[in-house]
Structure formats: structure tokens, C-alpha cells
């Protein structure tokens, strides 16, 4: 039953469409996450460019107000759920097993299902553009604007149903990575020896598991309102719009940390390697991450200061929010502490990591300013808050994810991204980013509300908006430079060594790209930064290049169609709820077809031997 390396590589190299559709290999799934998320990221970026072009001048008429509302709703939704989250998932998938010394995740087929549910959900949401009915109620879909009465079209149905589909993908991945990290670590890798990225991923999964059910229920209630005519959030039937805000932000604030914690982890991997010095204050970093996540569940109402909750609630949520600055500050100081006394090597990943710290400081400080409730009454729902969360999400998450892309590209694809182009990419992105978002602080303080499709001349918004628009195109150009870099790298195909950066973690001990089974011999870990320990023990700066292996005797789960079938079933099931029908029998024919498809898929999957389709002797 054992499979030889020749057959394995043969299968991998054939690279048929079917082999990608049925793959359960965490590395291929990671690449698929990355590729699809990058495409969605580009779509969200194009939406942003149209938005910025419309706002470049006052009283512009480039797009209709209706289309503008679709653009900013989809821009926000896309960047959060289809951009940053799945780009993080790319790194979870590809690198968590490698970092903990495992051959795959705990549930490879569940992992494949997460991927396909995510891709189908993302396509479904963007399909709405083709029907001229893209979601238009803002990414937090406030009731009662999102109710059938005020949003009669299919627009918000796409949003409500699309987010539920994406939620399933996130929850399945949450269960999977929670289990993988806790249970699949190499021998000797205790919790406090885990690389920092593994820690922040684990905490992120806990946040997903505890916050996504809340938004799932909120979306179900909204769907019930829209499809079956209930009134959870509409005042006419006794509902309360405030309930939606509470449920949304009980999810929405932890979601912020779901977006930023993986970035913290990536930075904490990169800085030590390019400082040639271990992470400063590892334990403090672990506990501050956990503390941030914990506090993240107790501060949701700071998104609601302008609703007039009363002075006691304002005080509580102000102070709780300020508390978060303490563990966040600890992180920033520890990163600087990591640099301190090091021997800094300014490779592209390091530049992006340093850019991350510099930008995140700004976003963090404007966050503290938002926690000051009375001042927030002037800043919330203006371009000041737009500037703030872009400093966190772009200056934070995207800079970190780009750093991770440069850092781990050689391991993923076995080639090195070009350093010169990479440095151009960095400086253009840094300049474009600051030119886009720094002026927005001023536009906001000078009174520009967010989500307006145009503004009159004479309020003084012109200069800052023009700066932001020019910056946005510069930023877009930097992404083109990145794409050019990827294209050049693929064309030149210069093989990368196993350990191009002098890494500290286990992924650098295996070939680039890794063979399908990752580790021929399962590693044993005796301390933190295990690969540095190995090198120090051997008295070398780089380990000898690992040889390719036969993989004889290593068993891997075989490919399967059923995860894809289940994902399609879930999609069809939910589409059924876009059709209005009577509540006496809440399931239309489409829903039933989708349910059956899902059920059949789950049973077939359950009874399929995991290596049923694995290559055999």
C-alpha cells in the first residue's frame, strides 16, 4: 500500500485540473487560498480605485450613487472576508503543519471543504455584480436599512447569504486548525516552544470559533426577516435595530483581531530571522496576544458610542478599549527590543516587516484616540475612522501579509522573488499607502462623513481627497510591481535553496518546495527556534541542502471529490433562501436539492476510506 516518491511526484506534476479540485494536500490548498484571495483582493482594489476616482473632485458624477454604495459595501466585505482573512488562511494552510513539524493538518478533507466553500462563497458574492445587484448596505449591514422594506432588491440577499456561506468555511477551518495546532505538534514542541505565528494562529482560531456563531445567528435572523417576513430588526413588528448592532459588533470587534493577529505572528517570525536574534520577550508576546483576544470580546460597544448608550456604558467601553493599548504596546516594544542589538539584514521581507511596525503604531494610536468616547463622537463615521482602520488593516495586515509573501515565497514555490523589484515594491507601497490614507485623517477632522458618494465644493475637502486619490493609484501601481515581480520570478525560475534566509523554524529544514509529505523523518524539538539550535550545535550558519527523498512507507490521504460536492451543496442550499416563499414550508426546491447534495456528500465522504484514491503500487 505504500506509495513511492516517483508515483507521488508523477501525480503532483501532472497537475491536472482534477488533481487540484480533489486535492487534500495542505500546501496545494494553501496555494489555492492564496491565488483566489489575491484575485478577490485585486477586485476589491479595483473597487477602491473607482471609489477614489469618484471622490477625487467635488460633485463628481463618474458613478451613480447606487453603484457607489455597492462599491464601498463590496470593497469592505471583499477586503475583510475575501482578502485579508483568506490570505492569512493561505499561510495557516501552507505553514502551520510545517512550523509544527506535521505532515498535514488534522482533517485534510475538511480543509479542502473549507477552501471550496470559501471560493464558491466569494464567487457567489461577486456574481451579484453581473446581476447589477451587488450588496449596497455597508459592510456592517445596519438594520433597518438592510431589511426588505428599505432594501427590496436581491442586493442584501447576496450579502446575507454570502456571509453565511463564508462563515461555514471559517468555522470549519477554525475547528481544523485548533485541533491541528493543539494535537499535531512534533515531539518535544511544547506550547511554549511553538513559533509565534503558530500561537497567534491558535488564538485567531479561538476567536473565529467564538465570534462567528454570533454573526451566523444575526445573519439567520436577518435572513428570516427578509425571506419569511419576520421582524427581528424592524420596528413595525416590535423588533429593535440595536440588537443587530450588538450582535454584529460582538462578532465585529473580535473580527478585527482575527484580521490582525496573524499579521502579528508573521512579523514575529520575520524580525528575529533578519535581526539574527531571537524574539524579545516570547512569553510576554504570547500572553499579550491572548490578552488582546480576551479583551476583544468586551469592547464591542465602542463601535456604538454615537448611539447614546449613556455615560456608564460609555465609560466602561472607553476604559476597556484603552486597556487593549497596553498589550498592544508591549508587542510593539518587544519587536523593537528584538531589533535592538541585532545584526539587521534589510531584505525585502524585513523592509515590509519594519514598515508594518511603523504604520501600525499610527493605526494603534488613532485607535486609542477613538477609545476616548466624547472625541469619538466627532470622529466616528468620518474619514478619520476610515484612515484609522486602513492604517491597521492595510498598514498592518497587508504589509505583514506581503512581508510573509516575500519571506515564504521560496518555500512555497522553490524560487526567489526578485530583491530589487521587491524593494521598489516596498517603497512605492509605503509612499502610496501614506499618501492615500494620511490625508484622510484631515478630511475626517474637517468634517467629511464616510460613505458619501460625493461632497460639495467649499467645505475644504478637495485637497485631501485629491491627495488620497493620487496615493491610491500609486498604491495600485505598487501592486502591479508586485505582480510583475511574481511574473519575472516564475519566468526566470531560479531555484531557491531550502534555507535562503538563515531561518529558525522547521520549514527551512526541508526542500523548497516541500515534498508532499513534508518531513521524511518526523522532527523532534528540544527548544524554541529549533533550527538555530541545530545549526549552533553543528557549528554552521546554514544546514546542508536536504536531499529529495523517496517517501517510501509514508502514507498520505488520497484526493477526494466529496469536499467539493459538499461545498457545492452548501452553496445551492443557501441560494434557495434568496427566493421568497411562505413560512408554512420554509424550504423551496432549490434548498432541498442543496440539502440532499450536502447530505450525500457528507455520507460518501464519511464512508470513503481516506486513502481510497491515493496512488497505489
Amino acid at each position, binding site marked *: *500500500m505504500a506509495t513511492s516518491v516517483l508515483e507521488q511526484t508523477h501525480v503532483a506534476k501532472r497537475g491536472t485540473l482534477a488533481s487540484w479540485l480533489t486535492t*487534500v494536500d495542505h500546501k496545494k490548498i494553501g496555494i489555492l487560498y492564496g491565488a483566489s484571495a489575491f484575485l478577490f483582493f485585486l477586485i476589491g482594489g479595483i473597487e477602491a480605485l473607482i471609489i477614489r476616482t469618484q471622490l477625487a473632485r467635488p460633485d463628481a458624477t463618474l458613478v451613480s450613487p447606487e453603484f457607489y454604495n455597492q462599491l464601498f459595501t463590496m470593497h469592505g466585505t471583499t477586503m475583510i472576508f475575501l482578502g485579508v482573512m483568506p490570505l492569512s488562511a493561505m499561510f495557516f494552510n501552507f505553514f502551520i503543519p510545517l512550523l509544527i513539524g506535521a*505532515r*498535514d493538518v*488534522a*482533517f*485534510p*478533507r*475538511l*480543509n*479542502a471543504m473549507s477552501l471550496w466553500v470559501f471560493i464558491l462563497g466569494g464567487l457567489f458574492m461577486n456574481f451579484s455584480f453581473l446581476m447589477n445587484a451587488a450588496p449596497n448596505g455597508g459592510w456592517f449591514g445596519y438594520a433597518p436599512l438592510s431589511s426588505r422594506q428599505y432594501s427590496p432588491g436581491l442586493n442584501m440577499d447576496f450579502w446575507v447569504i454570502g456571509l453565511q456561506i463564508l462563515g461555514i468555511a471559517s*468555522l470549519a477551518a*477554525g*475547528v*481544523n486548525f*485548533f*485541533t491541528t495546532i*493543539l*494535537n*499535531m*505538534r512534533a*515531539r518535544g514542541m511544547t506550547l511554549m516552544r511553538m513559533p509565534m505565528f503558530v500561537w497567534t494562529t491558535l488564538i485567531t482560531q479561538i476567536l473565529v*470559533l*467564538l*465570534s*462567528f*456563531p*454570533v454573526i*451566523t*445567528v*444575526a445573519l*439567520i*435572523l436577518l435572513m*428570516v426577516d427578509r425571506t*419569511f*417576513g*419576520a*421582524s*427581528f430588526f424592524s420596528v413595525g*413588528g*416590535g*423588533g*429593535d435595530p440595536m*440588537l443587530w448592532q450588538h450582535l454584529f459588533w460582538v462578532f465585529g470587534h473580535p473580527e478585527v483581531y482575527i484580521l490582525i493577529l496573524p499579521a502579528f505572528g508573521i512579523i514575529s517570525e520575520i524580525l528575529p530571522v533578519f535581526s539574527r536574534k531571537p524574539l524579545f520577550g516570547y512569553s510576554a508576546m504570547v500572553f499579550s496576544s491572548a490578552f488582546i483576544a480576551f479583551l476583544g470580546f468586551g469592547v464591542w460597544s465602542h463601535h456604538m458610542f454615537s448611539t447614546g448608550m449613556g455615560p456608564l456604558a460609555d465609560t466602561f467601553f472607553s476604559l476597556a478599549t484603552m486597556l487593549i493599548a497596553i498589550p498592544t504596546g508591549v508587542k510593539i516594544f518587544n519587536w523593537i527590543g528584538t531589533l535592538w542589538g541585532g545584526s539587521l539584514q534589510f531584505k525585502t521581507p524585513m523592509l515590509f516587516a519594519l514598515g508594518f511596525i511603523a504604520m501600525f503604531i499610527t493605526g494603534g494610536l488613532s485607535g486609542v484616540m477613538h477609545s476616548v468616547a466624547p472625541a469619538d463622537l466627532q470622529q466616528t463615521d468620518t474619514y478619520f475612522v476610515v484612515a484609522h482602520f486602513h492604517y491597521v488593516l492595510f498598514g498592518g495586515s497587508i504589509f505583514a501579509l506581503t512581508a510573509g509573501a516575500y519571506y515564504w515565497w521560496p518555500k512555497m514555490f522553490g524560487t526567489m522573488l526578485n530583491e530589487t523589484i521587491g524593494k521598489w515594491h516596498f517603497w512605492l507601497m509605503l509612499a502610496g499607502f501614506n499618501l492615500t490614507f494620511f490625508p484622510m485623517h484631515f478630511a475626517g477632522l474637517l468634517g467629511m462623513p464616510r460613505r458619501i458618494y460625493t461632497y460639495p465644493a467649499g467645505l475644504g475637502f478637495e485637497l485631501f481627497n485629491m491627495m488620497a486619490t493620487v496615493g491610491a493609484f500609486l498604491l495600485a501601481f505598487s501592486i502591479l510591481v508586485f505582480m510583475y515581480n511574481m511574473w519575472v520570478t516564475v519566468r526566470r525560475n531560479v531555484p531557491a535553496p531550502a534555507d535562503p534566509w538563515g531561518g529558525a523554524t522547521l520549514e527551512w529544514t526541508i526542500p523548497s518546495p516541500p515534498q508532499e509529505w513534508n518531513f521524511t523523518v*518526523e522532527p523532534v524539538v528540544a527548544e524554541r527556534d529549533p533550527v538555530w539550535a541545530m545549526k549552533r550545535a553543528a557549528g554552521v550558519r546554514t544546514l546542508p541542502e536536504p536531499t529529495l527523498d523517496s517517501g517510501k*512507507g509514508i*502514507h498520505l*490521504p488520497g484526493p*477526494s471529490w466529496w469536499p467539493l460536492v459538499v461545498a457545492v451543496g452548501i452553496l445551492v442550499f443557501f441560494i434557495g433562501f434568496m427566493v421568497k416563499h411562505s*413560512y408554512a414550508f*420554509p424550504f423551496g426546491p432549490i434548498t432541498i436539492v442543496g440539502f440532499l447534495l450536502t447530505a450525500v456528500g*457528507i*455520507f460518501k*465522504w*464519511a*464512508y*470513503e*476510506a*481516506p*486513502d481510497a484514491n491515493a496512488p497505489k503500487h
Partner: protein
Amino acid sequence: MPTPPSTEDVSTMSSATLAHDETHDAHEGHHTSFPIDNRKLAIWSFIGSECLFFATLISTFLIYKDSHPKGPGPKDIFEVPLVTGGTAVLLFSSFFVVMALNGAQEGNRKKMLGWLAATIGCGLFFMGMQVYEFSHFYHEGLGYTTNLFGTSFYTLTGFHGTHVAIGTLWLITVFKDAVKGNLPPAKALNLELAALYWHFVDVVWIIIFPVVYLMSLRS
């Protein structure tokens, strides 16, 4: 109760489904970092997530339980004796499934099948009770969208009922395997996973019963 991880259990590398696992092939065993099977850990994390799901639904019900400007309210239609019966049945079923698992671990096929059948029977009874209750309420004038009390009641208990249905289906699948002789003691974990989920579904009802039925009557 916890089964020692057997060498044959290879779910770490191979099992991708929580519903049921049919792996017998001789994969090499992979150690787990904690002395708990992957699938069990996954179910626990899923249950943790589900707690928030039901907490949100129960909170929504509590917010809207007194919102019945038209149509019947809780006092008008709740029939506590019936639901108490259903609650008792569900409580017993948790005990039954423990006995079934005990039988599976001992290799006592008769014991396992008997208790498992009893558990499934309890699940079916509970679902029947809920169908009866819903149709009764409907005839009393409480449609799904008659008032917010009704909508949040049906949504909460409907989702719980769906969980009971999924759990029953799961137990039936395990039962089918057991009848075929595919549930030796080494694979008792397959039943244990279903049982864990079943216990959770019961516990949720133990919260719903006082919070939804008894508290609504008091106010």
C-alpha cells in the same frame, strides 16, 4: 470514559470527517500532542462554538419573549407537562447513550445495540413531541411571524430540534454500523463522538427548558 488511543486509530493523518470514520488501513500511528484523539478535540471545539450559537439565540428569545402585541403569548400556549415529559426523555437518553458507549467499549454487542436503540427512540420521541407542539401552537394562532415571541421561540427551538435531528441521524448511522458488526471496542470512539454531541444537545435543552418555558410563565 476516555478510550486509550489505539495503534489502529490513525485519525490524525487520515480522518477528515467528524461524522463517521471508516479507516482501517494500516497507516502508521501518529502521536497526538495531548492525550486526546483529534476527532474528539475537534468535537469539543465545535461544541464550544455551538455554545455561542445557542447563547445568542437564547438571548434573542429573552429580549423578545414579551413582544406579543397580537397573537398568543407564552402564558397562553405553553404546555409545561408535555415539555417536561420531552425534557425527561431527553435527559434519560443521555444516560442511555452512556450505557451504549459502555457496551461498545466492553464489546458487549447486545448491550450496545439495546441502549443505542433506546437513545434513538428518545430522540425520535422528542422530535415527535416538538412537531406536535409546533402544530398545536400553530392551530392556537401562533404562526411563525405572528409576533416576535413566536418568531424567536420557533427559531430557537427549531434550531435545537434540527440539532436533535442531526444527532439522531448520526446515532442511526452508528447503529447501522454496529448492526453490521463494524463497531468493535477499538472503534468505540465513533460512538463516543456521536455521544458527545448528543450530550451537548441535551444540555442545551436543559438550559432552554427553564429559561424559555418556566421563566416565561413566571413573568
